[in-house]
């Protein structure tokens, strides 16, 4: 079998992966660094982030305030030492990106412009028009092109981590172009594969977000942390999952149920006025809006469509002039990607999964308990987001912890012996497994899409916005059944060249493992905190649960869930002022920059 070898291997080529690669290259130019990604780096899901990246730069702002906003927004489940490091390094990383050419929006005399963002009490969100993630990713990718030591494996799909002697020593990957299966050994592996939104049926996430890295680490024996915390955004298009920004509601849009009634008034969110009122009705906190939707749905008052149940966002009364000047992007997205014109049609919306707070458990330097394995970005859980992430914190998180993990992995690799040849036999075994389980298997009764859709439906009903013991247990059983049926999958594509059906089957396997961990952690946490809401345990329980859940993959039987206390340094847990800040900031300021 072919094999190649590197010092530091990045799995995933998004913001975290590329930033880590550059950081490792800057530690020592002699290091052999490689980025392996199942898509070309500029396709990574970082590219679709719109809002902005938070970093303290203005004189009236302070690191402590950013830290406090993050910790209270996270319902006190954030590790405060990690948050302190994060808020300190975020502006430095964002500035470094500016030095690399990122086109941040500017104030008239040329300084970086910042804007308000939901949950942040001060203006500290840097932004590049309404395509911040796009500009950040392309700046990072173009910058990596000038570092010769960074090699790239574009469109290689990692199927397994190679471990020996308690240490991760590389990966097994399929070169999609040719179908060749190869071992790539490395002294340190950093997972930067992003989140797992595709485990759910309604998500803003791209097709490639299947929790690959989480499942790889989980299967190798590393624990996953806080998997039950899944963030929903209350208004997304049901079919495509495209986000409809809160600006549409801030400008005066109404949310209507199937009777054309503004149902939010029944949920303690104020009285319906003709215009928008901050923190009331449609401008209530995100999680309250999502929860109201679920209750309406349970009472059969939502609209049923072939793409799931929805409510209607009504922008028609705002008029053409306002929509074209203040909400042009909303109109463009609806028209261009779902063929709906908000000027004269009702826009179907529903809560959609947006971000995964949980992930591979790491320390402040991205190191997991498994030697040689690091993680950074959405795939990791450090944790700075706790039970609920604030908007515009995830992009700087990729940069800060990507850089830290890159440097830590480079230092670790410099002290390691080369991986031993024993791992190559594991790679040969993996190749044989892929052959016999998928490629050469002649029969089988299940289609990939059937199992995937059933998994998504089950996870949404059991581990959705509201959870309870019965629904979670049902989900857990259903997932076990699906794991069995997964073994019976039949591929129609037996070619080696660019076999995307094999890729989909492997991704489904990853998603089933991740789904199992989400349901188990949700079952074990008998309290409600942040994004995890239990109808049978509606109160927050700091006595028992001011701790992260760590889930380990079972050798046999069910998963093991343990608890790791949250690190509190300076901010004692308090009451979480729901979602919005006391200073009445809308979540996303409805401005379109002149461009």
């Amino acid at each position, binding site marked *: 079998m072919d094999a190649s070898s590197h010092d530091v291997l990045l799995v995933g080529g998004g913001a975290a992966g590329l930033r880590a690669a550059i950081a490792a290259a800057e530690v020592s130019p002699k290091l052999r660094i490689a980025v392996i990604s199942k898509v070309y780096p500029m396709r990574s899901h970082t590219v679709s982030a719109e809002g902005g990246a938070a970093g303290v730069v203005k004189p009236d702002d302070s690191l402590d305030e950013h830290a406090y906003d993050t910790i209270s927004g996270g319902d006190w489940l954030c590790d405060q030492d990690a948050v302190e490091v994060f808020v300190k390094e975020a502006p430095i990383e964002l500035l470094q990106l500016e030095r690399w050419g990122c086109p941040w929006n500017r104030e008239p005399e040329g300084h970086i412009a910042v804007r308000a963002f939901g949950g942040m009490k001060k203006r500290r969100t840097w932004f590049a028009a309404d395509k911040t993630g796009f500009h950040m990713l392309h700046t990072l990718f173009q910058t990596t092109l000038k570092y010769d030591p960074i090699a*790239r494996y574009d469109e290689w799909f990692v199927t397994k981590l190679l471990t020996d002697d308690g240490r991760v020593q590389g990966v097994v990957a399929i*070169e999609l*172009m*040719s179908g060749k299966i190869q071992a790539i050994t490395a002294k340190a592996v950093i997972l930067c594969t992003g989140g797992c939104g595709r485990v759910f049926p309604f998500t803003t996430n791209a097709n490639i977000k299947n929790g690959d890295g989480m499942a790889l680490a989980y299967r190798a024996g590393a624990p996953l942390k806080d998997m039950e915390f899944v963030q929903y955004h209350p208004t997304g298009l049901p079919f495509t999952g495209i986000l409809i920004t809160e600006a549409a509601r801030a400008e005066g849009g109404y949310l209507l149920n199937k009777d054309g009634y503004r149902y939010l008034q029944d949920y303690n969110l104020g009285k319906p006025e003709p215009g928008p009122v901050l923190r009331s009705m449609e401008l209530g906190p995100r999680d309250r809006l999502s929860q109201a939707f679920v209750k309406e749905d349970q009472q059969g008052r939502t609209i049923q469509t072939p793409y799931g149940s929805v409510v209607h966002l009504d922008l028609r009364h705002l008029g053409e002039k306002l929509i074209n000047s203040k909400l042009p992007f909303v109109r463009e997205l609806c028209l261009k990607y779902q063929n709906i014109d908000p000027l004269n049609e009702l826009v179907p919306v529903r809560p959609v999964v947006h971000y995964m707070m949980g992930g591979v458990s790491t320390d402040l330097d991205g190191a997991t308990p498994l030697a040689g394995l690091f993680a950074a970005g959405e795939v990791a859980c450090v944790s700075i987001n706790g039970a609920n992430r604030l908007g515009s914190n995830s992009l700087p998180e990729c940069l800060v912890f990507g850089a830290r993990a890159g440097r830590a992995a480079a230092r670790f690799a410099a002290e390691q012996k080369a991986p031993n040849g024993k791992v190559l036999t594991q790679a040969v075994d993996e190749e044989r497994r892929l052959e016999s389980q998928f490629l050469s298997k002649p029969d089988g009764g299940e289609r990939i899409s059937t199992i995937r859709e059933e998994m998504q439906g089950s996870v949404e009903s059991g581990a959705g916005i509201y959870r309870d013991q019965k629904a979670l247990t049902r989900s857990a059983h259903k997932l076990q059944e699906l794991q069995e049926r997964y073994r019976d999958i039949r591929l129609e594509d037996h070619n080696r060249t660019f076999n995307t059906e094999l890729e989909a089957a492997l991704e489904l396997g990853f998603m089933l493992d991740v789904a199992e961990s989400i349901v188990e952690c949700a079952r074990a946490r008998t309290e409600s905190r942040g994004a995890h809401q239990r109808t049978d345990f509606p109160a927050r329980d700091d006595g028992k649960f001011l701790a992260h859940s760590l889930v380990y993959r079972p050798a046999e039987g069910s998963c093991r869930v343990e608890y790791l206390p949250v690190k509190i340094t300076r901010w004692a847990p308090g009451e979480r002022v729901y979602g919005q800040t006391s200073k009445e900031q809308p979540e996303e300021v409805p401005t379109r920059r002149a461009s």
Partner: protein
Amino acid sequence: MNPSTAKPRPAYTEFHPRWYRPRVSVYWWLGEWQYLRFILRELSSVFVAAFVIATLLGLRALRNGPEAYARFLHRLQTPTAIVLSTISLFFVLFHTITWFNLAPRAMAIRLRGQRLPDIVIAAPNYVLWLVVSVAVGWLVLR
């Protein structure tokens, strides 16, 4: 296949020779209306050149005396010459209009942060063309 490193190395796999590489046909320009328009636009330069040559020949005929010039004019009035002249006129007009319309694409002139719209740069060309044509026409027809 080896990963892409600093030195660009051709990346071959077992199936590389059999990636499908369609040949671009010699008649590629007939495949699409936009391509045909482009080729006609480029071809118009031939007619512009022909027009310049005809003008030079006319000047030479003028210098050689009234009979030479009369012969030249006579040749211009044969049916073939008239047909060719009409076609040339069409192509020269086409050439001019496409040139004026495309010229602003090469010039990004900004006034107070906003880029000047193409028409602001194209229009003076048309105006100048009109003025010169009127002036020449008046001179010739006087």
